Structure formats: structure tokens, C-alpha cells
């Protein structure tokens, strides 16, 4: 289902369109209350953004003429599925001289296969090609 958003009318989503927002654990914004926190009903995972929300924000970014920001949000939507350590691991693998081409290609494949993270996979493949051309892969 595509939701049509008008940035002037619908942003900020938290106050204008709260019904569109859910945590990755399925909670509504108004369920994250102090009472719920104290009752132990809110965990750190509840204070994360859901991929659907990032795609809504990407739509807003696109409609105000910020395609790169939108693309970043779409990559981020893919990364919501990855555990923190994996995200940090891929970041470290992308540092100069840190990885062989094979290692980066494996990461890209894993992103695409296990997380349907095609945009992130593409970014890693692109890095692998540039790193090879510029001689900054690991030996």
C-alpha cells in the first residue's frame, strides 16, 4: 500500500501522522509512555525506527528535492534488519586496506541474500570496484 505524503501537511510525522508510525516491535508511539517504561514494557528495541518509517521519510525527502538523503534513508531501511555488531563489522570492512575484493563481494552477497539489502549490497560492490581500481584493497 502506498501512502501519499504531503511534507507541508504531514511533517513532522510524530505529531501530524502518528497513526503511520510503529516501532519495529509493533508498538504505537503513544504506547511508549513513562508508565510502560517503569513497568518494564519498553525495551531498547522499542526505541528504534522501523524500515517502513524510513521509507516514508525517504518519500518526504524525495518530494522536497533531496534524492541523496532519500536514498540514504532507503539504505538505512535495509540496515534496520542487521544487528549492531554486523553493521559495525561491515563499516570496518569498508575502511581502506581492510578487505580483499572477495571479502567485500561476500558481504554484498550476504546483504542481498540474507537481508534483501540490495541498495547496501550495491554500495559495497561499487566500493569493491573502486578500491580495486585505486589500489586500496587488502593484499
Amino acid at each position: 500500500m502506498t501512502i501519499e505524503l504531503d511534507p507541508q501537511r504531514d511533517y513532522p510525522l510524530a505529531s501530524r501522522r502518528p497513526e503511520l508510525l510503529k516501532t519495529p516491535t509493533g508498538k504505537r508511539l503513544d504506547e511508549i509512555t513513562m508508565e510502560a517504561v517503569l513497568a518494564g514494557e519498553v525495551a531498547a528495541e522499542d526505541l528504534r525506527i522501523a524500515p517502513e518509517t524510513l521509507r516514508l521519510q525517504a518519500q518526504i525527502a524525495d518530494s522536497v528535492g533531496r534524492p541523496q538523503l532519500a536514498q540514504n534513508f532507503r539504505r538505512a531501511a535495509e540496515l534496520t534488519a542487521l544487528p549492531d555488531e554486523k553493521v559495525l563489522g561491515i563499516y570496518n570492512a569498508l575502511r581502506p586496506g581492510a578487505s580483499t575484493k572477495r571479502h567485500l563481494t561476500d558481504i554484498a552477497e550476504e546483504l542481498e541474500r540474507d537481508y534483501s539489502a540490495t541498495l547496501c549490497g550495491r554500495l559495497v560492490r561499487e566500493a569493491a570496484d573502486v578500491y580495486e581500481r585505486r589500489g586500496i584493497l587488502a593484499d
Partner: protein
Amino acid sequence: MSTLSAAGSDPSASPRRSKRTEILENRPVNLDGFVEEWPEVGMVAMDSPYDPEPSVRVDNGVVVEMDGRTREDFDFLDQFIADHAIDASAAQRAMALSPTEIAHMLVDPKISRAEVLEVSRGLTPAKLLEVVKTMNVVEMMMALQKMRARRTPANQAHSTSARDNPVQVAADAAEAGLRGFRELETTLGVVRYAPLVAIALQVGAQAGKPGALTQCALEEATELELGMRGITGYAETISVYGTEAVFCDGDDTPWSKAFLASAYASRGIKMRFTSGTGSEVQMGNAESRSMLYLEIRCILVAKGAGVQGLQNGSISCIGVPGAVPAGIRAVLAENLVASTVDLECASGNDQSFSHSDMRRTARLLPQLMSGTDFVCSGYSGVPNYDNMFAGSNLDPEDYDDWNVIQRDLQVDGALRHVPEAEILAARNKAARALQGVFAYLELPPITDKEIEAVTYSHGSNELPFREVLDDLKAAQSVMDRGVSGLDIVKGLEAGGFPDIAEALLGVLRQRVSGDLLHTSAILTPELTTLSAINDSNDYAGPGTGYRPSGARWEEMKRLRHVVSARNPEEEVG
């Protein structure tokens, strides 16, 4: 050296100098360093014979030549910029305009910000450089007041401690929030202290005025980890550089940084990149390019990565452009270029660069008078000796001067005068709240004596020593136990500070909506997001755009000492 020898009696004696020369020699500005230009090593602000000529060639929607280089010769910055930052469909039309035509568009209030963006999206680094080279500083200021993304200016403070004392950081953060700062940044002397200081900053920030966002400048991966846990609220020190060699020395590439940008967004955390003129020459590999040309490459890497904003304005390298001719003009130009390509700009005025009060004010005025998304990135909320970013261009001793300048010129630098009683109450409350959180998290206790001292202190020298080894052990346990922002909320509630707990929960809740991820977003004290979307800059010449008025202007009129016009004996505040 003798000053008594008669002229002519000793040929080796220095020539006689005038009293005036002696006075000038002793002026603080002569403690500053100045150096002549040396373009071959990049020691030139923005006018180098070695900068490339602008050019672009697009083939099948792909940029195949840029600024005199063909695609097979692109270094990794060229390729990233060509493929991600430049809109190939806009490039040829935009590049056909002359630099002065584009500069006129920037300056002319009748040309809207949106119209400029239609052109700037197609410009190469060398072309953007040519554009700003045609502009003097007044023209740049005119352009900046139109091109900054958010309508309402804001400001950022540093809250650090020479002893990494968390109690001090909390109290100074609370005071800074109360004075108007919407972002607070800390960093460490001893890095292992980071978790405790970051917790203190978060607590203090919400104790002053709710919604001030906090960050802790650390190595990239650690900074991300603190952010993911909700101990910090945003991130800024994600550095990018203008040459391939220096980028690699920084242990990153445009692709690793772009991935990091997405990593932050994937956790709902706001972030911006950092860059600045002078970093490449300082790190010894400027490829004979001018500082500004290289900085414009950084700006376009940020744009291409899809990060919402950039901290620039030389930042920690300000001594380098500050030493060469037109260096401070180049620093203004880099802020302008960031805004011109539609990025949030946290515009420097941070690291100290001059011994001269007159010179540091002159360096500040372009950003203050034009207004930027964050006029300082950071204003030091602590005395110079406590500033772990090597000092700032503005210090707490300057608070009253700042407020007077705002009032004199009716220019909004986002700060306000706050009566002492309110400041003492906020400092005290922040320290007590942190005491409660530390107790709840079983961290080394904060004593009442520390709280009393920090309420009235100026800097860490006036505070009781803490048991550093105990603190460091506790800091490690914060990481090992996986303490999160939510635990701080619970600690605040348990400590008897439900209002601060509620404010912090409100800040953490923002992650779910992602509203703060948009360009130039800040949180108001009511925890409403204000960004370039719902507060977009609408400057269109005299009588338009942001002008301090109403309640804000009334607030700006108040100073430490204002007397009644009718009764000069009476202070009206």
C-alpha cells in the same frame, strides 16, 4: 638587550623603534601566526594556480569528465562526487552558466533558494569554487542568509571537563541548554571516561531545557555504539577529507562514510559529517590544491553520501586558513557552499584561533549576522582550560558580550541572558539528577559536596577530585552491562526527577519517527521537530525571512544590567 646605547655608538644594536611600534608589537594579534602563501603544498586559501578548470561531460547519464579529468583518471573522491553528488541531468545546463551569473543568483534576493538549488545540483567542485571566488564577504553573507536551510538560526555548545568530571559536564550542559543552545557536544581527555561523561551530558541537557540534543565526539565506531544505545542523541564527528591520501590516512573512504551515514539513520539517529579547510595541508597531502577547492570536494562527498548536513568552517584546522591571506573569507565561503548544496551547516566558530578579541569577533560576525543552522559548532560552555576540543573562539566569559551584540544589531545568535538564580537552580538540579542516576546504576557516588561546588563553580579547578580509577572501572561496566538511554530514564525517575525522565524519554522517542533525520532538524523545548521542511528558509529580501520579533526579541532585549529609562537608579534586567 640594552635600550640605553646611544644611536650610532654600536653598529650591531637594533635600530631605534618608536613607542608606537612597541605598543603594536605587544598587541595580542601579534601572538597569532601568519604565513605567506605556498600554493605548491596547498598553503593557499582559495586562489591557487594549481586548482583545476571547471568542466563536465555527460554521456548516457554518466559523468565521464569532471574538472579536467576523464573518468578513468578519477580518484575515489571524483568518482563518488560524479556518481552520487552531481545531478547529471542538470549538469550541462548549470555548468554553461558563468561563475558570476551563478554568484548573482546567490546574492539576488529575488532569486529564490529553490531556484539556486536547481543550478547548484549540477555544479562540479571547481565550478563552485569559481562561483565563490567572484564574491566578496558581504556578498557571501547576503547569499548565506538566503541559502541556509533552516529559517530559524540555532547554536551548539561544548560541554567538556579537563578532568572528565561528569558532574561538571552535567551542570554546564544544563546551563548551556538554559541559555539557548539546542545541541551540546562533549569529548574526553581520557577516552575510557566516555560512557560516564556521555550519560552526564544527556542528563544535564534535559535538566536545562528539554530537547537539547547531545553528542560525544569519539572514534567513529565507538561514537556509533554510544548512539545506538541511546546514551547520545546525535553524531557529528564523522570526518571526511578532500584528497584520497588524507581520506585513507583518516582510515575511511567516501563509501565507508556513506555506509556509516545509513547506519546512523537505520537507528533513527541524526548525524552530520565534519570537514574543513586546511585539514589536507595540515595532514601533509593537499596535492597542490587550494584549501577551499579540497573542502568543496568534502562538501560534495557529504551531499553524495546522503547525509543531511555538515559541520564545516575549518573547525580544528582553523589555524591553517587563519594564517594565510583571505583565509577567513575562504572559511565563510565553505559555509556558503555547504548551504548552497542544501546541506545543514554547523558553521564552525569553534576552535580558538586568535589571541585578539577583535579578530575573533571579526571571524564570528559573518556567520552570526547572516545566520546559519548552528552559528557555532561549538561555543565553549566551559572555561578554556576545560575545553577538550583545544578551546573555542567563544567562551563562557563571552556570554554577556554575545547577548549585547545580539541586542545591538538585532541579530539572533540563538542565546539569551538568564538570571543567575535560574542558572544556579539548573546547575544544581542537573548535578542532583546525575547523583540519582549514578546511584541507580550503581556507579561511584556523587557527593553533596560535589553538587554544592559545581553549582557555583566556573571550572573543574574548583571541584573536589573524583576517584578516577573507580570512575573508569564503572565506565567500563556501563559498556559491559549494556546500559542504555532507557536505563538513564529509569534512573532519573527513581532519583526523583520525573520531569527530566519524561524529557529524555521524549528525546529517545524521536528515534521511532525519524523526523529528526531531515535536514537541519532540531528539537524545540516542547520537543517539536523544527527542520528545513517545516521551518524552511524563506528569505526573499527586505521584510522577509527570519527576523527576531515578538517574544524572542523581547527576550533578546534583556541583559545583565539594563536600567529603567525613567529611573536610571532602577535595573529592569
